[in-house]
């Protein structure tokens, strides 16, 4: 799925790295606990989360993720956006809640674990 398709499906607003909206992603994860992202994520390129702090961006960067979606209209700080820009990570924000946002993407073909579906 293209990141731009995610944006449309989630009715989201892009906050940085718009130039990377054309990138393709194949799996995602929804999580508020960065410990779990670090321990369990494999190749998921997208993180949906309700947690807002700079460690969200750094964790995504460590995991080579390419897009972060903040749910429930949570707004990242300027500092966080600068970190994301530095790494080319697309940041977007949606009014939807975590469960709903994940459900929409999943039912449109963006799975949780790529390996299982190949």
């Amino acid at each position, binding site marked *: 799925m293209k990141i731009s398709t995610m944006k449309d499906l989630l009715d989201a607003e892009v906050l940085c790295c718009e130039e990377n909206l054309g990138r393709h992603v194949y799996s995602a994860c929804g999580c*508020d*606990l*960065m*410990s*779990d992202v*670090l*321990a369990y994520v494999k190749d998921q390129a997208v993180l949906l989360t309700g*947690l807002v*702090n*700079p*460690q*969200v961006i*750094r*964790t995504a*960067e*460590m*995991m*080579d993720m390419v897009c972060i979606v903040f749910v429930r209209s949570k707004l990242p700080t300027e*500092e966080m956006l600068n*970190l994301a820009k530095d*790494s080319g990570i697309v940041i977007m924000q949606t009014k939807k809640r975590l469960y709903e946002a994940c459900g929409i993407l999943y039912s449109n073909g963006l799975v949780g674990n790529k390996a299982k579906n190949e």
Partner: protein
Amino acid sequence: MSEELVFHFDVDGEDFTSAGQASVQIKKILRRLGLSPEIIRRVSIAMYEGEINMVIHAGGGVADVRVFEDYIELVLKDKGPGISDINKAMQEGYSTATDTIRSLGFGAGMGLPNMKRYSDTMEINSVVGEGTEIKMRVNIR
């Protein structure tokens, strides 16, 4: 000539928002050195977990990264409270993190096991009341 490359970082324990900075920097450096994405990912995740631990459990510390021809060595040193039972601390799910730390997205008790998983060797030396030193190696070939 196989002089190793050495990188030193001071990890600030006062400011949680800056936790992880050193790991982001190391990741950039390793990319510039042209290492494989797999190696870069393993090193940076191991370092990030260790760096976050120093901030949330030990009030900060120092990190030294040495890049040798065959392996990368990470040494994380702090003067925190130390770890009294290392075997217990190594168990998945064991954590002494407070609710505040959990509300920041950490404290699942997964960091140390994750560091072990992503490194080829890991050694912990800790003295209660004095501090902790963790040495990890990731083989390049």
